[in-house]
């Protein structure tokens, strides 16, 4: 009965949505069925796809930068205990500041357009990925490190046999968190500083009070984010279980 609980959840969510719709009416909401229909019309619209591509392109670049830079910051900080202890509270403080406030700075540096969106997505994702990577490296079993020294493993051997297998599960968790934050960052960047992309469409629909459009876009974004997250979560749990 693996599918029973998720099915109940889905049913509860749709039911809540429908009841909410019946309560507030057409001024504020559309029914789940109407929204699915609106989304379908949107998806076959030829003018819509360039926006999806634009957002995906910005997001993929921002996310890739976040992963690479996050690992480049986190792994050395995990290896060097002193540097890690110095940097950790700074990273946590950076994680907790509302990064939206920095969007004017990003726009002043990069100008309106693709680079600003990519940068905005990247700065949202970098910090969590580096925090998780740092803790992953820091928590490598010391016995494994001593064994590596006794066996005289080469640098590449150490990376392949010890570093990657020991840190991968935590790093995947970090990447999962970074994924959602980079997506939020990209969308926020599009809402404020762009003439294209899903974030821009959402902002436009908001100012036109186009509820059908707002709900269809929200459904698309939520479905995408939840779908990818479910995949990453399955990978994450699989890796954590496989850990000795």
């Amino acid at each position, binding site marked *: 009965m693996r599918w029973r609980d998720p099915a109940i959840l889905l049913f*509860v969510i749709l039911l809540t949505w429908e009841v909410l719709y019946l309560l507030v009416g057409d001024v504020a909401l559309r029914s789940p069925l109407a929204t699915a229909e609106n989304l379908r019309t949107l998806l076959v619209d030829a003018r819509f796809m360039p926006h999806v591509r634009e957002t995906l392109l910005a997001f993929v670049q921002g996310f890739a930068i976040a992963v690479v830079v996050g690992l480049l910051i986190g792994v050395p900080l995990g290896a060097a205990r002193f540097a890690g202890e110095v940097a950790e509270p700074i990273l946590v403080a950076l994680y907790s500041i*509302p990064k939206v406030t920095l969007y004017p700075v990003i726009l002043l540096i990069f100008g309106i357009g693709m680079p600003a969106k990519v940068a905005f997505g990247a700065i949202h994702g970098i910090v969590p990925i580096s925090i998780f990577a740092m803790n992953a490296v820091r928590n490598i079993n010391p016995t494994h490190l001593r064994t590596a020294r006794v066996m005289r493993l080469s640098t590449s051997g150490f990376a392949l046999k010890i570093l990657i297998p020991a840190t991968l599960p935590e790093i995947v968790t970090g990447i999962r968190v970074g994924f959602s934050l980079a997506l939020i960052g990209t969308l926020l960047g599009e809402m404020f500083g762009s003439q294209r992309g899903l974030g821009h469409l959402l902002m436009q629909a908001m100012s036109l009070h186009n509820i059908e459009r707002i*709900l269809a876009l929200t459904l698309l*974004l939520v479905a995408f984010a939840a779908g990818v997250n479910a995949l990453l979560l399955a990978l994450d749990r699989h890796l954590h279980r496989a850990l000795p």
Partner: protein
Amino acid sequence: MTVSSARIFLILGAILLLELLCRLGIIPNFTVIPPSAMAQSLWNILASGKFTADIAATLTNVGIAIVAAMIAGVALGTLLQSWPAARRVLDPLFATYYAVPMYAFYPLLIVIFGLGDLPQVAIGFLLAVMAVILNTLNGLDRVPPVLLKTARVHRLGFIKEAIQIRLAYAAPYVFTGFKLAVAYSFIGVIGAEFITSSRGIGYEISFAYNNFDNGVMYAMILFILLVVITVNMSLHAWEKRLLARRRRA
């Protein structure tokens, strides 16, 4: 060199470097103004009282969101912990909650709650409440069975047992949730103010940006960063004191 002095050197060094780069014109002033100018401008703004109403509005909204998330989060967490079937059904929702771009619901909240402060408070609350729920559940899961047996021996009711035994034991975990709730409330409320609002710190920053008023913009950004970091550091210090007392006991 100790860890904390190295940290202070690092932060001061970064600020000094930024100051130098701006003063030498390597970073042009219409992109970033020197940190000393930001501080000067912030001081003038605070002294003039020009934005006092905006600051008060933002902090009030953040405060309401935090308190509501704390109360609702602990209550829902406690309820769910004693209702495993519901928790199992909701588990996928918990796991995907923070993956969903919450701001996508903002237009919807505006339509439901109107154009006042409520949609902003709601975004802050929605972001914050899940952190409290998850950490409350995590703490309650760790209560040793012997304490629960003690509660049964003393014939405590559900509410009394929850407050005196379960939540008391789970307090440090719940505190972690509160800390996150504070950060998320700021993120939610200020982000929402950027999107649409007619007052508040986020609104003033985006207004200053649209008018190329870098003095005001950087002053208010600095203000937000200082407030959030100060609140976080104080909570961190308080948490450390609580944990130290618990270890002694």
